[in-house]
C-alpha cells in the first residue's frame, strides 16, 4: 500500500541507483583487479617462507609445503649490506620527499600568483622540460662531470627533487584553493610574503601537498635507477637497487649458458627464497606510509568538488 509520493521517491532512487547487473559487474571487475594486485604479493610472501628444495621439486605454493625460515636467516646473516641499504632507502625517502615538497611547493606557489609578472616564463621553463629533455648522456654528464655528485648520497636525492608534472598540479591546486582575496587581506593585515606562504597558503594546500608527497615518497622508495647510474660504492646502495641488481643478474646468467663459467657465478647468487625474503622486506615500510597519506589523499579529491 504505497503512497504516490513514496512510489515516486523510490522510482527516482531506483533511477539513480546503479542497476544490479552493473553493480555486480563493477564489483566483480574490481575484485578481480584487486586480486591481481594482491595475489602475487601473497605468493611472494609464501615463497619466502618455503624451503628452497621444495620449490625446485614442487614449484611455487601459496602455503609453504615445507615451512622454513632459512631465507630470512640468510638475509640476517648477510645482514650488514641489506640493513645499510634499508637505512639508505629510509633516509633518502624522508629527506628527498621533504626537500622536494619544499621546492615544488615554493616554485608552484610563485608561478600561481597572478601578481608575479614573470610567472608565465617560469611556468614555461618547467613545462618545457616535460616535453623535451637532453637525453641520457648529457643528463649523466651534468651530474657526474660538472656537479660531481656520483658516489654521494646527493645523487640519490637531487635528480628527483623537482618534478614538472607535480609543479603543474600544485600550481593548479593553489589557483583553485587559495583565493587571491585571502592573500590580499593578509597583506593588508601586514603579513610579509613568507608569513603568507607558510601560515596561510600552506595549511590550505595540505591536501595537495600530501598527494604530491605520497607520489614523491613512492618515487624515492622505489627508485633503483639513480643508484644504477650514479653509485659504484656499495655503501650507498639502496634496497630497491640491491633487489634489482640481484634479479637482473639472475635473469641474465640463467639465459647465457655459454658465458665463461656463468653457471658457477649463478651458484653464488642468493636463492629464490632469499630473493623473495628481500622483496618482502622491501615492501614493508612503504605499506605503512600509505594509510598516513590516504587521509589527505581522499580529502584532496573532495575538497574542491564540494566547495566548487
Amino acid at each position: 500500500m504505497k503512497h504516490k509520493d513514496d512510489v515516486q521517491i523510490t522510482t527516482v532512487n531506483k533511477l539513480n541507483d546503479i542497476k544490479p547487473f552493473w553493480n555486480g559487474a563493477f564489483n566483480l571487475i574490481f575484485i578481480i583487479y584487486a586480486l591481481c594486485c594482491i595475489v602475487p604479493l601473497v605468493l611472494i610472501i609464501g615463497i619466502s617462507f618455503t624451503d628452497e628444495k621444495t620449490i625446485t621439486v614442487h614449484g611455487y605454493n601459496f602455503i609453504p609445503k615445507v615451512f622454513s625460515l632459512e631465507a630470512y636467516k640468510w638475509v640476517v646473516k648477510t645482514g650488514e649490506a641489506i640493513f645499510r641499504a634499508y637505512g639508505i632507502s629510509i633516509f633518502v625517502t624522508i629527506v628527498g620527499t621533504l626537500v622536494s615538497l619544499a621546492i615544488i611547493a615554493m616554485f608552484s606557489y610563485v608561478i600561481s600568483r597572478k601578481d608575479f609578472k614573470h610567472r608565465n616564463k617560469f611556468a614555461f621553463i618547467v613545462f618545457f622540460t616535460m616535453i623535451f629533455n637532453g637525453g641520457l648522456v648529457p643528463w649523466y654528464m651534468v651530474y657526474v662531470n660538472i656537479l660531481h655528485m656520483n658516489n654521494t648520497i646527493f645523487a640519490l636525492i637531487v635528480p628527483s627533487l623537482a618534478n614538472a608534472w607535480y609543479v603543474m598540479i600544485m600550481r593548479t591546486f593553489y589557483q583553485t584553493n587559495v583565493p587571491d582575496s585571502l592573500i590580499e587581506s593578509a597583506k593588508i593585515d601586514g603579513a610579509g610574503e613568507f608569513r603568507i606562504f607558510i601560515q596561510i597558503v600552506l595549511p590550505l594546500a595540505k591536501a595537495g601537498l600530501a598527494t604530491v608527497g605520497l607520489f614523491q615518497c613512492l618515487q624515492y622508495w622505489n627508485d633503483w635507477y639513480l643508484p644504477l647510474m650514479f653509485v659504484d660504492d656499495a655503501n650507498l646502495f639502496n634496497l630497491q637497487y640491491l633487489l634489482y641488481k640481484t634479479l637482473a643478474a639472475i635473469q641474465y646468467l640463467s639465459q647465457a649458458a655459454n658465458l665463461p663459467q656463468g653457471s658457477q657465478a649463478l651458484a653464488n647468487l642468493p636463492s629464490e627464497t632469499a630473493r623473495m625474503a628481500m622483496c618482502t622486506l622491501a615492501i614493508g615500510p612503504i605499506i605503512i606510509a600509505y594509510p598516513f597519506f590516504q587521509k589527505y589523499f581522499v580529502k584532496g579529491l573532495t575538497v574542491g568538488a564540494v566547495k566548487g
Partner: protein
Amino acid sequence: MQKAKRLIGLALVTCMAISMIAGCGKTEEASPSTATNSAVDTSASTGTETLDPVELQWYVVGNGQPNDMDKVLAEVNKYLQPKINATLKLNIFTWGDDFENKMSAKIQSGEKFDITFTSNWACNYQQNAPKGAFVDLTPLMDKYAPKTKELLGEKVIKGASINGKLYAIPTNKEMAHNWGFLINKDMADKYGIDLSTIKKFEDLEPALKIIKEKEGANGVEAFQTLTGESAYRVLDFEKLVDDNVPGAIYGDGRDTKVVNDFATAEAMSLFQTLNKWYKAGYIRKDADTITDYAPARKAGKVFATTASLKPGKDAEQSISDGVNWTQIDITPPRATTREMTGSMQAISKTSPNPERALMFLELMNNDAFLCNLVNYGIEGTHYTKVNDTTIEQTQAGKDNYNNSLQWLFANQFNTYLFTTEDPQKWTKFKEYNASSVASPILGFTFNTENVKTQIAALTAVKKQFMPGLETGKVDPATVVPKFTAKLEAAGLKAAIDEMQKQVDEFVAANK
C-alpha cells in the same frame, strides 16, 4: 614579493651559471685524450724511471662488490706501491644491465677511469673499440707489457685485435672451445650405459631410449635442447654476426666460403635427428617455448644436453648444479675470435695514466701473488693453503670474498686451485690450447653497417622458424625449404654477399 623576485633572480643566475659550465665541460672533455696521448709519447721517449703516485680505477663484471673488498685492496696497494707506485680501486659490478648501463654511461660521457672489463658479451669490445673508447695498446705493448705479449702469444693477440690493432688484453685462460654432451653420470651408471661408445651426435640415441623407458615416467628429459640453448650449436659453425643471423663458415676451417648455415646438409641431418628424437619423446614437448635451461638441470631431471666444453667443464658444472655430470667431446677444439675476445681488460681513452694502467696489467698477468690476492683475497683470512698450488676457502672467504672470477682477472694459469678441482687443470688447459686449430679468419669482425636492415629482418625470420627446428618439434623436410625461402625474401643474398666480401678482404689483407 620583493624577496620572491630576488630569490627567483638568484635561481636564474644559478641556472645560467650551470649551463655555462656545462658548455665548458664539452670542450674540456675532448682534451684529455690528446693530453694522454702526448703523455704516452713523452714518457715513452724519455723513459722516465720516477713514477708519480696514481690511483687506478678498474671496473669489472661479476657478482657485485664483496664485503671485504676494502681489506683486500689495502693489501694489494701495500704490494703495488713499491712496484709501480699505484693504488688500485677495483669495482665489481653486477651481471647484465647493471654493468652494461654503468659502463655505457661512463664511456659515452667521457668519465675518467683507467681499466674496464670488455668482451664480446659484456661492454662490447667490437663496438666500443672502433668508436675510440679504448687506448690502442699495440705501440705500448713492447715497452710496458713485454711479458704479457709473450705470454699470450701471436695467435691470441691476432685474434683479439681489430684491424691489426690491439685495444684490450685478453685474459690468459682456455683459448679454444669445442662442443659435446654433458651427461648425468649417476643416471648413466644406474642403467649401465656405456658412454665410451658415443663418438658423434647420433650415437647418443640408444642411451636416450633407455632413459626414456626407465625414467620417462619420473619426468626426466632424456635430451635437453631448448630455444637458443640448443643442440644446433654442436655443428660448430663459425658464425659471422651472431647466433641469430644466417651466415657462417664451416667450423673445421676447410675454407672461407660463407654459407647459409641453416640450410646446409649438416643442419638438415641434425634437424632430422632431433625431429626423430622429439617424436620418440626424448625431448620435452614444450621445449620450443622454454629458454631457462637451469631449473630442470639442477633438479636432476635432465639426462643429456649439449654444451660448450673445455677440460674440466663437467666438474665445474657439477659443482654449480649439484648434479654429477660427465662430458663427452664431439667436436675438436677450435680457436676463434669468440674465445680470444671472451674476457679482456681495456684501458680507457679517458685514463689519465694509460701507461701505468698497462704496467699494472703486466704485473697482474705475470705476478702470481698479486693475481691470487685479487682472486682469492688474503691468505689466512680468506683461504688457507693446502699445498703450493691448492687452497681451501675459509668461511670468511666464502662469505666475504667469493668472486669466482678466475677467468677474468689477468692470468688464470697463475691462480690457485681448489681442493675439489683437478690438480692437472692448468696443464690440461695448456695442452687444450696448444691442440686447438686456429680459425682461418681469426681476428675478423663483421661490420654490420651496410646490411643492418637485412640483419634485422633475418633475425626476425630465424626467431620464427628456428625454435621449432632446433627442438625437433617440426618436420625439417617441409619447414627448412619454407625457412630458406623466407630468409631469401628477407635479404639473405645481400647479407651473405657482404659477409663474403668482408671475409675475402680480411683474408687478402692478412696473407
